[in-house]
């Protein structure tokens, strides 16, 4: 799809596909069916061209010099920040911090809180609590476990129901007056579950806890408005939303970012440096020590533009159709069980499933022979596998360029796998 596509035109998935060169390749002599988008997405020509044009015409280090290229590179980098801010509905571009990925963003917040002086609004100690959920990606779980280990704070988590939702029965106990941070995933990468941000934010506000929302699986697929979500921090990663790897985003409320201690020290994040000590720049520079991810930020902005030109609401509607088709198809196969919500209600595009009698690694290998790329394993959410009594799952996750025909290839592939393994 090219610039200027009408938001009201019917969704033309084949025009979208034409923008992604890799989708025309073959795997094992068959057309590639790429259903591993929750892991990482492919890049359209527009994004690749934007990054290449920047590097070929304007590249230099940023915030460093007075020469022409340095200024042009700085302008492009800061324009990328403006674009991402607008993409997220942020009121102020200073609220957007570029990181190398989502993982660094969670660690940034956790280490910043851990660096806070005793008695500050961010500091934690024995008696304080951090609350997460049982469906977190390891990246939004382990940093909080580590923070609690360092500070003596207690980690709590919201458990899951049998049908893949948060069990909010004890929410008022789990999120209480001792809770300093409630960190949770917006859309689960393994279950596909979309969580009720409003309910969770409302409870956090009652007790004065900060709220971090992991948007790695939501921002690529639906329109996000951080003001409407009402959280304090929101995280996304570029490579899952058509941008290159190496770029992530932490959005945070400016008054918080300006008050939080730094995470990484170095160049760019300082104000005055003396041998006896230093003071720090305001956000976002405070959290962007060293030469930042420059051309990747430019490419991320191009990806945001691309997604918005097509329209995130239209993308979400397209994906909902595909997800519905996958869920319906799986429900008709005997011996196949969906791990996660079995309807498109409050749900993203990642669908995990188990096939009786066949290990996910064998499923993934067999599907690869048919040209179908899915993810197998614990998806960096091992507690979820444990909760549902499976060692691993097979996950199919679609995106804006997948087709109903590809869903049918997957469903036929699963039947072929079952026949091969005689189950």
């Amino acid at each position, binding site marked *: 799809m090219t610039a200027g596509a009408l938001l009201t035109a019917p969704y033309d998935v084949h025009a979208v596909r034409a923008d992604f060169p890799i989708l025309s390749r073959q795997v*094992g002599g068959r057309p590639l069916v790429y259903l591993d988008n929750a892991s990482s997405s492919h890049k359209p020509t527009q994004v690749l061209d934007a990054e290449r044009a920047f590097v070929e015409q304007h590249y230099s280090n940023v915030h460093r010099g007075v020469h022409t290229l340095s200024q042009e590179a700085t302008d492009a980098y800061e324009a990328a920040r403006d674009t991402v801010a607008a993409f997220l509905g942020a009121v102020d571009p200073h609220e957007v911090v570029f990181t190398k990925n989502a993982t660094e963003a969670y660690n940034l917040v956790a280490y910043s809180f851990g660096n806070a002086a005793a008695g500050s609004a961010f500091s934690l100690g024995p008696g304080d609590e951090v609350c997460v959920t049982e469906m977190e990606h390891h990246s939004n779980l382990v940093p909080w476990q580590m923070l609690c280990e360092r500070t003596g704070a207690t980690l709590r988590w919201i458990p899951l129901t049998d049908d893949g939702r948060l069990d909010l029965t004890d929410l008022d106990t789990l999120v209480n007056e001792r809770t300093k941070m409630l960190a949770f995933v917006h859309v689960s990468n393994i279950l596909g579950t979309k969580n009720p941000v409003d309910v969770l934010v409302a409870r956090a506000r009652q007790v004065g806890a900060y709220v971090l929302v992991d948007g790695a699986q939501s921002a690529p697929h639906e329109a996000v408005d951080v003001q409407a979500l009402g959280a304090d921090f929101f995280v996304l990663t570029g490579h899952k939303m058509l941008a290159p790897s190496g770029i992530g985003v932490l959005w945070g409320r400016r008054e918080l970012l300006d008050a939080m201690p730094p995470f990484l020290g170095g160049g760019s994040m300082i104000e005055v440096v003396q041998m006896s000590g230093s003071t720090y720049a305001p956000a976002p520079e405070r959290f962007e020590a060293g030469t930042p991810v420059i051309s990747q930020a430019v490419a991320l902005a191009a990806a945001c533009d691309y997604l918005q030109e097509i329209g995130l609401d239209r993308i979400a509607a397209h994906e909902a159709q595909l997800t519905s088709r996958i869920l319906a198809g799986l429900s008709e196969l005997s011996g196949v069980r969906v791990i996660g919500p079995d309807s498109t209600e409050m749900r993203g595009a990642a669908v995990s499933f188990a096939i009786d009698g066949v*290990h*996910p*690694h*064998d499923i993934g*290998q*067999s599907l*690869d*022979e*048919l040209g179908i790329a899915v993810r*197998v*394993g*614990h998806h960096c959410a*091992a507690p979820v*596998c444990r909760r549902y009594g499976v*060692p*691993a799952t097979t996950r199919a996750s679609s995106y804006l360029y997948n087709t109903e025909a590809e869903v049918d290839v997957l469903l036929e592939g699963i039947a*072929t*796998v079952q*026949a*091969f393994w005689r189950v």
Partner: protein
Amino acid sequence: MADESMYQEIILDHYRQPHHKGLREPYDVEVHHVNPTCGDEVTLRVAVAGGVVTDVSYDGQGCSISQASTSVMTDLVIGKPVQDALRTSEVFLELMQSRGTIEPDEAVLEDGIAFAGVSKYPARVKCALLGWMAWKDATAQAVAGSSEGAAHV
């Protein structure tokens, strides 16, 4: 399905009907090995007497490659002198690291030759080695501790 090159009938047979599976006594050492990237795991016991591997028993969960490879391994090491079994494990390791360039010796590896195709899939090599690595670990501990005579019966 075109993946017969990897999923040889020998592998499927061992997967469906694994040899020596189930934890048994007596044993000298028990180890638990996991593959952190995929969650496969094996609990394995080794009994060594007079420099000979007298028994290997195991339980676990995992893909066909890891389960079949562990089954084949027990056939190859039980009843063998420890030194001979370790040499066999080195031959199997070499095969798995060969990326399909080695013609396996059936006289040494027996059913293990079926895994030659797996060596062409680097992501699956660790599956094929899970049981072997657990056995080597347990056997090394058993040999080191044999002078202490702390057998579990």
